[in-house]
């Protein structure tokens, strides 16, 4: 007991010391008559802090005054008060500018008990004033249980005085007479903040409540409440990781990627499918970044889970089509940017969870206190039992699972320099019966250096190295082999941000990436009798991108975001390139020559400008109209002829025969907020046309094909859609309804008619699902219990179905497939519910636990996973994942 008390006191003491030190550093002296935005930038640079804000919020507000060691908070709040804003200190170095009237998400978290910040509480009385100091005493208790909180820190902010509560939760301290803000804090509880007007000595008691909102919800707090109206760019979706965790889960694991598919314009081809489709784009048209490193596979266990460990995710942003600005490129449809959390630089923490199929554990803490930190976490699956449930002899004897590990080290090397190191390892494996073993995985490493030249000029440098690999090994029979395929890449990027010009934020920089693709090497194993060694020549290429972008606030109503990107690609040797005979379809039989290129010798170059433009015109304070256009180029192509991607699908770079894909997207939207920004409504329309997107010929052989170009076609695509969204962002009930109507069609014409797909006519893409409806509902029943429900509806995906049957020899009948994707499986809909019980930190215990009870597909609808046809071409509907209950347990310490 004493040890625990000592530890608590130690922690509390450290905490007190840290806060006291930090806040006394942020003192303002001098005479000011400076725009608020400029003042913030100067302060950020001076104190090495981060103040989340949007310059356009401040309009013409200025910091005016003559200060002498005045706390930064006071100075800023004085300047922001006239425009109904205030600044909130979230942590030692993190400040958030928020509206006076919409303090979220803490509003929701405190609605049952905490004192409103605006309320000034009088302590003592004027009649009892003696001198200029007073003694404040009282109790700090758990707001739910009434139990005293020992070791809580009580801190008077402006006077920088503090103390801690004793074992009975009692505190007593001497503070100056006058109005000042008090903060009451203890590990695992939300800070209790009260504005006290101290007239004389007196008593003030504070109840603390469990910390429901965790640090990694900072994404939400960093935005203004009217971000969707005020931001210039459309098609940018940010998801709160806490929201992701509370959503109903499949088999006990929160999933970042699956949650994305509830957003307007984001779909998936089906349950259990890896990846996602954005505004008429294939899975391979999404650039997925984790701490700046590129991921070529975003899923584990064939698509059941995403590669992102939800405990380690700081924030995730999806840039849909038109939302991709000039600083990003390389894919036609979207960029998913996932940033991982930095470790706590002050205290050690851990968190983890156990679900039906996997367990996870992560730790974070300081390496050098206040200077550097680490964050490490891993997951491991125990999913073999699942395969044993299946009534198939091979699957019963099979194994499947995965593990992954993230590491992030953050280091403040000087007040103007931050260095981050990030690493990621993942491995999936599955063994079919007793012979074939598949493994695939990702290895990533990145280093990022943020430097501040001045308060107006910043530099962001990043270097990444990565590999995605897939191996197959067959250890039985006469065809024993091992096959290895991989993609290596190495990239470096440099970005500069300048705020030298009022109302402008200039960004410029560049990125170069070297790709090496090895589509496969097949080698016979020692026992092989009938396996031929096959080596697909390695492909090498360099992708470059240079850009200049300006975010310009023209006036209160008009803002423009314009940029120009120039991208180029150089496919280089060493490589032998086949030359095909003109006038006949390309095939191995039509090769007439081979051109050899030496190492580094350029084989084929492509390049072009990619203009990006967005404009926002504010109709009034709560509504705006936005338009956008952008052009995107893609040089790396995912080649797949299955509806859902598989781990062994190959990537192909642009070369002499494969041209880069190019798309143009036009968007227009109307955005309006209601009810003091607590309800957000929007309507967005887009049209996208694409050229040279990769398609495949009927019966294409895409694996270990040295002449892959002979099985491919390059066609065009057209996609259009309308996205409607209605969100409620505040209060105990939150959620959204989104509806998307969209169409995506492709056309692949060959100069040889028999090679054209569907006779050269437009046909729906695999992922063309015109109607999509998502309803996400979250209701906080009590402080600790949250109810969630999701409903999804979508049109069935297109399939290729037989139009007739025929008989071959004495064998069974065979279906005759004519045209691609001319039929659809039935429509899909599903309701999921979950209950999250947050048990909070038990008093004096350092573990906070959370249970999630989920039911996937509550009404057990037999949604069609596929329609297949028997020998007699009788149609059957296969349904998977009916009513699936699951339980997961999560903990934080």
């Amino acid at each position, binding site marked *: 007991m004493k040890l625990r008390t000592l530890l608590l006191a130690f922690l509390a003491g450290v905490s007190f010391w840290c806060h006291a030190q930090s806040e006394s550093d942020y003192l303002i002296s001098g005479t000011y008559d400076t725009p608020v935005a400029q003042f913030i930038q100067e302060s950020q640079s001076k104190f090495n802090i981060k103040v989340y804000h949007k310059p356009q919020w401040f309009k013409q507000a200025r910091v005016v005054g003559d200060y002498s060691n005045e706390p930064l908070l006071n100075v800023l709040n004085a300047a922001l008060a006239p425009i109904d804003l205030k600044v909130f200190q979230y942590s030692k170095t993190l400040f958030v500018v928020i509206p006076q009237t919409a303090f979220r998400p803490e509003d929701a978290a405190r609605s049952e008990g905490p004192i409103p910040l605006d309320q000034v509480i009088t302590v003592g009385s004027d009649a009892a004033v003696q001198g200029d100091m007073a003694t404040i005493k009282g109790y700090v208790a758990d707001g739910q249980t009434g139990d005293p909180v020992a070791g809580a820190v009580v801190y008077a902010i402006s006077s920088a005085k503090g103390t801690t509560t004793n074992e009975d939760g009692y505190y007593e301290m001497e503070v100056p007479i006058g109005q000042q803000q008090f903060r009451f804090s203890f590990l695992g509880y939300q800070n209790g903040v009260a504005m006290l007007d101290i007239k004389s000595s007196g008593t003030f008691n504070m109840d603390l409540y469990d910390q429901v909102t965790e640090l990694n919800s900072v994404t939400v707090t960093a935005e203004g409440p009217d971000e969707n109206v005020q931001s210039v760019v459309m098609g940018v979706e940010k998801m709160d990781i806490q929201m992701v965790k509370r959503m109903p889960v499949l088999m006990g694991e929160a999933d970042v990627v699956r949650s994305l598919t509830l957003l307007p314009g984001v779909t998936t081809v089906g349950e259990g499918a890896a990846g996602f489709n954005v505004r008429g784009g294939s899975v391979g048209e999404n650039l997925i970044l984790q701490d700046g490193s590129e991921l070529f596979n975003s899923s584990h266990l064939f698509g059941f889970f995403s590669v992102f460990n939800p405990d380690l995710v700081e924030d995730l942003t999806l840039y849909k089509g038109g939302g991709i600005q000039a600083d990003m490129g390389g894919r036609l449809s979207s960029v998913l940017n996932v940033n991982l959390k930095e470790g706590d630089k002050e205290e050690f923490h851990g968190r983890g969870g156990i679900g039906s199929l996997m367990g996870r554990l992560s730790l974070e803490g300081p390496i050098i206190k206040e200077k550097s930190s680490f964050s490490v976490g891993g997951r491991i699956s125990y999913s073999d039992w699942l395969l044993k449930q299946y009534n198939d002899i091979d*699957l019963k004897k099979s194994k499947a699972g995965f593990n992954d590990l993230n590491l992030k080290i953050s280091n403040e090397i000087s007040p103007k320099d931050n260095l981050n190191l990030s690493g990621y390892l993942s491995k999936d494996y599955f063994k079919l019966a007793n012979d074939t073993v598949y493994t695939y995985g990702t290895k990533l490493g990145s280093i990022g250096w943020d430097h501040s030249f001045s308060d107006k000029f910043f530099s962001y440098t990043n270097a990444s190295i990565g590999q995605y690999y897939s191996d197959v090994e067959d250890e039985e029979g006469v065809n024993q082999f091992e096959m290895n395929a991989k993609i290596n890449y190495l990239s470096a990027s440099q970005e500069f941000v300048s705020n030298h010009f009022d109302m402008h934020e200039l960004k410029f920089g560049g990125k170069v990436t070297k790709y090496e693709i090895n589509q496969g090497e097949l080698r016979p194993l020692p026992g092989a009798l009938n396996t031929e060694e096959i080596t697909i020549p390695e492909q090498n290429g360099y992708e470059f991108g240079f850009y200049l972008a300006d975010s310009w606030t023209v006036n209160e109503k008009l803002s423009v975001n314009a940029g120009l990107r120039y991208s180029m690609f150089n496919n280089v040797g060493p490589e032998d390139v086949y030359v095909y005979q003109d006038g006949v379809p390309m095939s191995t039989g039509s090769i007439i020559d081979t051109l050899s290129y030496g190492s580094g010798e350029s084989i084929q170059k492509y390049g072009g400008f990619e203009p990006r433009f967005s404009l926002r015109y504010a109709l009034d304070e709560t509504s705006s109209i936005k338009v956008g256009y952008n052009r995107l180029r893609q040089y790396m192509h995912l080649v797949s002829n299955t509806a859902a991607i598989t781990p062994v699908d190959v990537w192909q770079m642009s070369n002499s025969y494969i041209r880069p894909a190019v798309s143009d997207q036009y968007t227009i939207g109307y955005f309006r907020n209601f009810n003091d920004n607590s309800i957000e409504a929007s309507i967005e329309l887009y049209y996208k046309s694409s050229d040279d997107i990769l398609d495949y010929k009927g019966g294409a052989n895409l694996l270990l094909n040295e002449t892959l170009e002979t099985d491919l076609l390059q066609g065009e695509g057209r996609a259009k859609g309308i996205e409607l969204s209605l969100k409620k962002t505040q209060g105990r009930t939150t959620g959204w309804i989104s509806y998307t109507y969209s169409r995506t069609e492709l056309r692949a014409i060959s100069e040889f008619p028999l090679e054209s797909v569907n006779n050269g006519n437009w046909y729906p893409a695999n992922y063309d699902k015109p109607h999509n409806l998502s309803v996400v509902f979250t209701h906080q029943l009590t402080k600790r219990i949250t109810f969630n429900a999701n409903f999804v509806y979508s049109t069935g995906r297109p399939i290729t179905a037989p139009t*007739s*049957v025929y008989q071959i020899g004495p064998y069974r009948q*065979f279906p005759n*497939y004519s045209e691609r*994707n001319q039929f659809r499986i039935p429509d899909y809909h599903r309701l999921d519910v979950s209950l999250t019980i947050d048990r909070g930190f038990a008093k004096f215990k350092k573990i906070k636990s959370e249970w999630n009870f989920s039911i996937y597909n509550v009404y057990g609808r037999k949604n069609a996973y596929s329609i*297949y046809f*028997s020998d007699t071409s009788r149609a059957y509907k296969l*349904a998977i994942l009916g009513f699936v209950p699951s339980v997961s347990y999560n903990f934080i310490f």
Partner: protein
Amino acid sequence: MKTLRTLLYGFVLVGLSTCVDPYEFEFQKDTEENFVIDGYLSNEHRVHQIRVSRTTHIGDFNGVVADYVTNATVVVIDDQGAEISFEHDDAGVYKSLGPVQALPDKAYKVRVTLINGTVYESNFQTLPEAAPMESELIYELGYQDVLVNNTIQEEQGVKVSAVVEKGAENQFYRWEMNHYFIIESDAGPGFRNPQEQRGLTDTELRFCFIKDYPPQELYLLENISNAPGDTYETEIEFIPISNKFEYVFVVEGRQLVMAEDAYRYWEDIQTLAENAGGLFDSAPFPVIGNITRVTDNPDGTVVGLGYFGVYNASVDRKFMTQASLGIDEEFAPCTVPPSPGGEPRPHQCQDCRLYEFPENYENSPPSWWGY
């Protein structure tokens, strides 16, 4: 990649609440019919056959009847203009008028002239070089895992393999497998073995020679040319022990060596046959063989279905008995069920001539089956 697909597919099934239901699919009604020409000529001197049929509209198809073309003119033409005529026999199958064979120095194509004058032809095919080894089957008693009441158990059976020799070039094989056996009507006449009933006609029989239904699988192999001269065994099929093994069981394997184009055609057919339409299956596609419509087809875009091949063929047969397999199984006798009333009708257990198989040779087995 079939194995990968199986596992991917299986994993998502997970047995949690998987179910399969018949589905009333709204098939396209306005599909044009197409013609299917399927057959081959080999270097075996025997009667060859070519089947001509139409595609059957899938909405009308009940899984029973294929739409056979019985009134076409079918000829195989060599590159010097000589014709081999075929006549309709049964169910769209046209048979050569006598034993014919493909010769190594000639090319052949099939020409089918429909009653309305429409002509379909294949391209010319030549006889591929013979494999280093003629068809050779081997067999052994073995076991395979099966699921019984959701638990894994071992099942006894015969593993049949083909012996293949490496050549200087890659070779492409397909095997046509057939099974033959002797069936016994345990309640029939009291003959002790087939020899005792030899020569009997128009009387009940206890032992009949049977050709079983052919396996519904395609057995394909691309024989890689590495290490010429080496031989190896490739497993063809596993036949569970049943009462068909009570006396004599014959496995016949016809080894067809073909050109790569023909092999790729059969490979595509096999791929489609395994396609379950799932997320991890490759998109289905029309399998185009080497049949083209000759008339009213100026740009050559109208193609027929099927394939006409010229193959190098050889046959091996293995006769198995319980003694040769080293087993001594007793099988439950065939019993006549009680008649509900009236005059009992003849039953298979009393007269094996009543068994319906693709071929019931009764007392006259094929010439190669000496007894």
